[in-house]
């Protein structure tokens, strides 16, 4: 099947009533929680993961993916109207979006965020459509050594490219991998780090851990400080951007889309970093960089395009390799496995309805988001006025229900509480939870692939360097680890010599 035929087939799958409903539900819930600060797509996807047990695999994945990219749309609304990021991916949008709102241009900011997201979302799905099939074919040549090398590359990128302290990120990644080893070792059958607790034999649960780190800890952080809700109150007019707005935004949207998409593919990046990069890029390219921070529409268009495009890019490693490049994709990977589907190079041929259905649903979802969101903005504004005192007990309740519904295991609730408190403490000392969770997921895969490689080669570590693909990837990983440290020093030395 050629790409167009496959896509038409996928479109037919995604337009089947049950799948269309799942898509609608996903993007609606996604926008809703995107608008609400303090609850993000990661917590929501984990809460709803058990709910999907009763659905078909295709509908489940369509819905969960919809939550993820839907949240990218919703997050900008809160940033623009309340100067509080609805999502971490919309932190940058606050800078110029809120300024635009204060200048009476809230409509234009919301409009360009929605259109920019739509264009970027659609372009990135187009990117998946074109790139996923050849990459799946290439991924067929991936054995355990190659998977291990890709994961290693992911870890180095994770440490170097995430914001904040590299040491802390490294500590979190190592801790995450260590947590991933808890439970019965899949190869030898020995219990590791369970300290005699039967509940830990299956390891630490991903869902309760995520909900603790992202849901409960966020609530704890918010209740201890007075949350100021200064929601923009004037009526919002003129959601359709003017010709001048478009002229200023076309470039940023285009660049944001490309940047977000390709950064999103890389493991360990997620959707936050691209927004910062896009903002920095637009400011650097602008003829009037001083306008940034004072209501420049480019500062809304670029980052909003980037975060949506990144969600699309992130689907590629998941669909073609079965490797989750960020935390939401790790949940999606979990959803695939729960429904008995192993995402990876074989999925495109073995489960085409799922593969193409999910991709096509993202086109559909982006259209729904654009059509629904512009008229619904008034509703989202109302939602922003829901006081946090009412919201946080509900968030905690849904975290508890979500954790319970996964397996009905009381130990999982304890894990939820423990990671809620740990996550709270971590944020107090500026340790990020995302690298921990990602390393938790990837660490298990890394250990398995390394040990499988060594079994394949009968104990010779040379297998990692003798296979061309694996050695290339390993070289990249080493380069990614070493270059950011070496290059600035060399540059400084050269500059010093020139100065002298």
């Amino acid at each position, binding site marked *: 099947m050629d790409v167009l035929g496959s896509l038409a087939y996928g479109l037919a799958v995604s337009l089947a009533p049950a799948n269309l409903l799942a898509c609608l539900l996903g993007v609606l819930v996604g926008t809703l929680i995107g608008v609400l600060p303090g609850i993000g797509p990661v917590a929501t996807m984990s809460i709803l993961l058990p709910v999907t047990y009763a659905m078909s695999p295709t509908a489940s994945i369509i819905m969960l993916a919809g939550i993820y990219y839907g949240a990218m749309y919703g997050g900008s609304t809160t940033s623009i109207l309340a100067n509080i990021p609805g999502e971490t991916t919309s932190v940058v949008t606050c800078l110029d979006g809120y300024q635009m709102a204060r200048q009476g241009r809230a409509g234009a900011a919301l409009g360009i965020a929605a259109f920019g997201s739509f264009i970027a979302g659609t372009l990135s799905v187009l990117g998946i459509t074109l790139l996923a099939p050849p990459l799946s074919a290439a991924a067929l040549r991936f054995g355990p050594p190659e998977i291990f090398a890709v994961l290693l590359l992911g870890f180095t990128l994770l440490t170097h490219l995430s914001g904040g302290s590299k*040491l802390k990120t490294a500590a979190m990644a190592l801790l995450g991998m*260590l947590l991933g080893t808890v439970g019965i070792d899949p190869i030898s059958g020995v219990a590791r780090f369970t300290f005699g607790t039967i509940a830990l034999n299956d390891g630490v649960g991903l869902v309760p851990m995520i909900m603790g780190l992202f849901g409960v800890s966020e609530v704890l952080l918010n*209740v201890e400080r007075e949350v100021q809700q200064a929601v923009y109150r004037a009526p919002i007019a003129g959601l359709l951007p003017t010709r001048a707005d478009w002229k200023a935004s076309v470039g940023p949207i285009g660049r944001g889309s490309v940047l977000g998409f390709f950064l999103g593919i890389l493991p360990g990046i997620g959707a936050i970093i691209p927004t910062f990069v896009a903002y920095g890029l637009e400011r650097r390219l602008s003829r009037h960089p001083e306008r940034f921070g004072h209501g420049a529409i480019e500062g809304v268009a670029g980052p909003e395009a980037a975060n949506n495009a990144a969600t699309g890019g992130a689907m590629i490693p998941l669909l073609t390799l079965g490797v989750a490049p960020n935390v939401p994709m790790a949940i999606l990977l979990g959803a695939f496995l729960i429904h008995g589907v192993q995402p990876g190079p074989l999925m495109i041929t073995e489960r085409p309805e799922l593969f193409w259905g999910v991709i096509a649903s993202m086109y559909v979802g982006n259209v729904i988001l654009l059509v629904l969101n512009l008229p619904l903005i008034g509703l989202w504004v109302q939602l922003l006025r829901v006081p946090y005192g009412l919201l946080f007990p509900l968030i*905690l309740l849904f975290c508890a229900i979500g954790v319970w519904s996964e397996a009905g295991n009381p130990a999982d609730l304890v894990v939820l*509480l423990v990671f809620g408190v740990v996550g709270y403490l971590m944020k107090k000392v500026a*340790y990020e939870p995302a690298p921990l969770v990602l390393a938790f997921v990837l660490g298990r895969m890394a250990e398995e692939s*390394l040990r499988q490689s060594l079994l394949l080669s009968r104990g010779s570590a040379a297998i990692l360097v003798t296979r061309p693909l694996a050695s290339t990837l390993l070289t990249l990983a080493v380069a990614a680890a070493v270059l950011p440290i070496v290059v600035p020093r060399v540059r400084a030395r050269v500059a010093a010599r020139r100065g002298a």
Partner: protein
Amino acid sequence: MVRREAWSAGALAVLVVVASIHSIRLDVGSVARPGPGFFPLVLTVALGVVAVALLLATTRRRHGDQRAGEEAGPASEGPGAEPIPRIRLGKLVATAGALAIYIALFERLGFILATIGFLAFLLGALAPYRWPIAIAAGVLVALATYLVFDTWLQVRLPAGVLGRW
């Protein structure tokens, strides 16, 4: 801030000691034939190195060395590092405590009763709602979520005390 940093690095160091003892007790094996303890040991050793580096960075920063501070990430960069105006510790402890008690009673008391108590407490004591409203909201939400999740979505929530009737 420096003190907090030192505490967190110290906590990591303690964890490293416990984890390394445990992984050595597991079969470590060799590079060619890694046992179940191999990967954890490699990780704990690496984590130990990072923890020591973090500790060094904090002590160097205490002595006012700016460069060390940059290496460990400027304190102002992290979300938790910004100066927090007023921490309401009581509310924080009450919320975490309520969640802990809720979790402890979740199965024993049953979903509906535990949830009513949990929500009524959070809304009545920690949010500015009057008690009758808080309790009514607790009952309403508990019943509604039970209907949606247990009856409709077939998630089996514990019936607890109410189940014995």
